[in-house]
């Protein structure tokens, strides 16, 4: 009598014994709940950590409220800006784009094929007050003349380390070598993984090595307080006119970003939304799983409930026993799911942070997520168990006791049985397993709902993925193989002639492109918008119109916006007329259409002839696109280098070259983050499905022990028992697959709609039919795998076991 349980009342001993003697079942239920806790911890924890850390790192970088791009300014101008009412701090810097390559290249005849590096020359590294960068590793700091700090994301695309030498070609053509003395992290720089350019920092005295004047061409400022974007825009106009204009500083561009919004904000919002959706779905799935398992346990315990009632147990006493049991499962599940979830969350957030180029200082999940995990592990099972436990303990004693014999269902009256009776010629084990499948209709329904939901989500996820990939095609509205930009306007005729003579070039198209600014109704200005002049008939443009129309032959002051402009500037609607400041002059355009192209920054298109006209430079181009006869992307890059060299030989310096593939990769890598997240989502959900199906199958085996024993007694072989359970699992999976496929169509459309809203970018909808096929194969495999273990246990049931059972 002096066991470890001797202090416990008999009914609590029963709870403990039931937990410990049905180890496999306990493990199963714990896993079902743990999967939910795990999913919530990974997903919501990951989301929480990402948001918290991103906000923290972003806020710590003190992003500038306003930045001006100017012709020339010195420290006295910067100090004047800083003294202006409403301005807290101001800083000047000089930025320029250079071409660079690794190693010393004194002999290189041309910089063709070199990459672009955005260099910022800063007057002050140690006491900067805005747009701060964090030093990750350095040989010496701050950098002196001839030294370069590289933004760390370059290491994701190429192998750069402290101590390396890079060759740099200044816009003037002057070559010099810079030594990498440090790697920094700049959250405000576009990661090199997203754009084909790297970012670097030098001291002001390095500018001389690059043939650059030492005055500033950018002024950044931090406003007092926390202004809205509109307030900040008004401040920008005041500073531009009253301080800079008054001192003869010409402002080329004003940038007033949405305060507190990072350039990756859209992607971030979308990711966080997806994670939230996944969290809710896995919560629902885990809830279903728990209901299913608890219901099965209650079904198994029904005769014991009857006995307990017969010897004086009240429904509420018995109910409490089972709820305590569920709570114990929950505690185990939290103990298992939470640490694994936190570990997986750690990996996941680390991975995401790498993709988004920011550093995570602490991986601790937010307390709210821990609370949520505990709630999911304890409260959800208890809530989910309430109904089955209530039903199980409310059952009348006669019914409970009558349930003891061979499965006392009223099978035979059912439609299904009659239907099955009609299907002659079905092999007997198959007929038997079908009968078994439908026999336990309640649990079948729940398992089906769980697996159907998981199937639907997985197939939707695949559809969202294929839609995103289709979007990558859609945002690309050009039909070129390579393109290049020039630092100063070039003659279209000359450039096109030189380029088209290069072997492998079959078509060329030069186009004017200027920075423009849209002036809003309240007088504030938009972000700079690239105004590209295109020939309405050009076959280099393949516009996909989301609203209005494309440019037509007779158009003059007509403009078509890309999705990014349409999103940023709600005032700009098809049919409205809008004032754009191009090269310092206000021009009025009529907005005729919006194209689906986006994610490449704000771009607008107008007829090339009209752009030439307002630029006052007929036939001047800033960009050249070309086509080759091949689809080989290496060949595109090679031909582009040849064109680049040929142009440079003729005195046409190329600022930046890109193949169509580079551009596609850029967009794809941003959306690729979403695709990756979606894949992770799919894996978690599939795990829920596997555990759920294994659980159901196991419980079916446990429940059919007696039947199995009888079948064994009348000579059923191991093989036919395997067959029975595996068939059952596969049938369930196939139904779930079919219904899931039906549900996944509207579900993926809804998910995509949510994403569109979060990103403000029209996404192409492409239902993944291949996903339906893939999931069919996967779910069948999962069903077979999930039924194997239970089927094995079933085949091990001996006649004696079955008869002795309970």
């Amino acid at each position, binding site marked *: *009598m002096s066991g470890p349980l001797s202090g416990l009342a008999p*009914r609590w*001993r*029963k709870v403990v014994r039931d937990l410990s003697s049905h180890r496999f079942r306990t493990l199963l239920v714990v896993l079902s709940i743990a999967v939910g806790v795990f999913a919530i911890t990974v997903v919501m924890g990951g989301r929480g950590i990402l948001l918290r850390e991103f906000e923290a790192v972003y806020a710590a970088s003190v992003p500038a409220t306003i930045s001006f791009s100017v012709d020339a300014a010195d420290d006295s101008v910067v100090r004047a800006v800083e003294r202006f009412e409403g301005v807290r701090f101001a800083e000047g810097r000089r930025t320029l784009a250079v071409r660079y390559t690794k190693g010393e290249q004194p002999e290189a005849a041309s910089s063709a094929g070199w990459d672009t590096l955005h260099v910022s020359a800063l007057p002050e590294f140690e006491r900067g007050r805005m747009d701060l960068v964090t030093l990750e590793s350095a040989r010496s700091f701050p950098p002196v003349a001839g030294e370069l700090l590289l933004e760390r994301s370059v290491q994701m695309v190429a192998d750069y380390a402290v101590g390396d030498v890079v060759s740099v070609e200044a816009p003037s053509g002057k070559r010099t070598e810079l030594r990498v003395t440090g790697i920094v992290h700049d959250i405000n720089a576009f990661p090199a993984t997203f754009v084909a350019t790297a970012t670097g920092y030098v001291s002001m005295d390095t500018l001389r090595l690059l043939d650059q004047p030492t005055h500033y061409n950018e002024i950044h400022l931090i406003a007092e307080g926390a202004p809205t974007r509109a307030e900040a825009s008004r401040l920008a106009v005041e500073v531009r006119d009253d301080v800079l204009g008054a001192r003869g500083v010409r402002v080329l561009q004003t940038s007033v970003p949405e305060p507190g919004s990072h350039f990756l904000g859209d992607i971030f919002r979308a990711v966080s939304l997806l994670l939230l959706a996944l969290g809710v779905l896995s919560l629902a799935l885990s809830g279903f799983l728990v209901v299913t398992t608890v219901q099965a346990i209650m079904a198994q315990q029904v005769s*014991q409930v009857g006995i307990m009632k017969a*010897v004086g147990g*009240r*429904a509420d006493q018995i109910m409490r026993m089972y709820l305590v049991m569920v709570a114990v499962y929950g505690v185990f599940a939290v103990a298992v799911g939470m640490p694994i979830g936190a570990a997986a969350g750690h990996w996941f957030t680390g991975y995401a942070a790498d993709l988004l180029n920011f550093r995570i200082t602490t991986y601790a999940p937010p307390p709210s997520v821990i609370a949520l995990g505990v709630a999911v592990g304890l409260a959800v099972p208890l809530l989910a168990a309430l109904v089955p436990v209530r039903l199980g303990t409310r059952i009348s004693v*006669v019914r409970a006791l009558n349930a003891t014999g061979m499965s006392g269902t009223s099978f035979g009256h059912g439609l299904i049985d009659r239907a099955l009776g009609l299907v002659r010629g079905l092999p007997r084990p198959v007929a038997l397993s079908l009968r078994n499948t439908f026999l336990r209709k309640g649990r079948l329904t729940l398992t089906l709902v769980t697996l159907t939901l998981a199937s639907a989500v997985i197939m939707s996820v695949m559809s969202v993925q294929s839609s995103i990939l289709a979007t990558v095609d859609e945002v690309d509205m050009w039909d070129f193989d390579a393109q290049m930009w020039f630092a100063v306007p070039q003659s279209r005729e000359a450039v096109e002639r030189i380029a088209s003579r290069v072997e492998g070039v079959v078509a060329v198209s030069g186009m004017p492109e200027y920075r423009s600014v849209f002036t809003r109704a309240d007088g504030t200005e938009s972000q700079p918008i690239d105004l590209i002049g295109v020939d309405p008939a050009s076959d280099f443009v393949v516009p996909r119109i989301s609203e209005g129309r494309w440019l037509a032959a007779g158009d003059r002051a007509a403009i078509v916006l890309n999705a990014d402009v349409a999103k940023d500037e709600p005032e700009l609607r098809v049919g409205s007329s809008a004032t754009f400041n191009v090269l310092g002059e206000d021009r009025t355009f009529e907005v005729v259409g919006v194209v689906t192209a986006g994610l490449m920054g704000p771009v607008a298109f107008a007829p090339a002839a009209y752009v030439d006209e307002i630029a006052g430079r007929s036939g001047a181009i800033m960009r050249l696109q070309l086509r080759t006869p091949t689809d080989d992307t290496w060949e595109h890059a090679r031909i582009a280098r040849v064109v680049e060299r040929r142009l440079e030989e003729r005195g046409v310096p190329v600022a930046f070259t890109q193949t169509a593939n580079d551009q596609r990769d850029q967009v794809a890598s941003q959306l690729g983050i979403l695709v990756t997240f979606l894949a992770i989502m799919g894996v978690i959900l599939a795990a829920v499905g596997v555990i759920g199906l294994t659980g159901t199958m196991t419980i079916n085996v446990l429940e059919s022990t007696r039947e199995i024993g009888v079948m064994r007694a009348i000579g059923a072989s191991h093989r036919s028992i395997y067959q029975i359970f595996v068939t059952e699992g596969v049938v369930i999976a196939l139904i779930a697959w079919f219904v899931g496929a039906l549900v996944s169509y509207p579900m993926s459309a809804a998910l995509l709609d949510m994403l569109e809203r979060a990103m403000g970018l029209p996404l192409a909808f492409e239902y993944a039919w291949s996903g339906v096929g893939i999931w069919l194969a996967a779910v069948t495999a999962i069903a077979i795998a999930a039924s194997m273990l239970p089927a094995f246990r079933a085949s091990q049931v001996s006649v004696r076991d079955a008869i002795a059972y309970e």
Partner: protein
Amino acid sequence: MSSQHTAESSVLVSLRDVVKVYDTGEVPFTALRHVDLEVRSGEFVGLIGKSGSGKTTLINMITGIDRPTSGEVVVGGTPVHALNENQLAMWRGRTIGVVFQFFQLLPTLTVIENVMLPMDFCAMYAPAERPEHAMHLLEQVELADQAHKLPSALSGGQQQRAAIARALANDPPILAADEPTGNLDSKTADAVFHLFEELVEAHKTIIMVTHDTDIASRVRRSLTVSDGEITDEIIHRPRAERVGL
């Protein structure tokens, strides 16, 4: 003598005009047709009858395991038919010990724990006294040495005796047993029956369903159930009288 005995004791169980209709099948089935029955305190009543005649249905009316479709069931002054499930459970736990054909011990509890379970549910005896009381009951059914085994390690007869000990846990005045010897060999069945006789001597009232005509002939009062009605009643003379002649 028997009439003298019945006159002395009070009516403990009384069924008046009890009808039970099962409507679970396709056509409603009347399992009990206007049954009237009185059982006095200290009686040992046997219910016999063909399979499907309604014996289990009848005994379930008395234990409150099932409810009559109409009519009254009063046990020890309590209108059983009027109690709700919870009241029934509590009432049953203290008033009637139920013994089943298939023993129905909880598989994960040891024999003694099974015996203590009704005490736990009905809060009978101080928790510290329960093991001692349960042990005492097990001694009575000669199972003291098996007390800490799980039911699966016991033979059928031992399991049934454990179930009887459990039925006696809260010292209920009535014991209701549905074919308690149905799954036992005749020798073991004999032992169980003997135990019942001792309990009757200890002033318990026992109502027992049985198929065994030999056993049926040994109870003091046997009732024959056929087609949902009590069709025959035999009062056997107590053994002592027969022996003494």
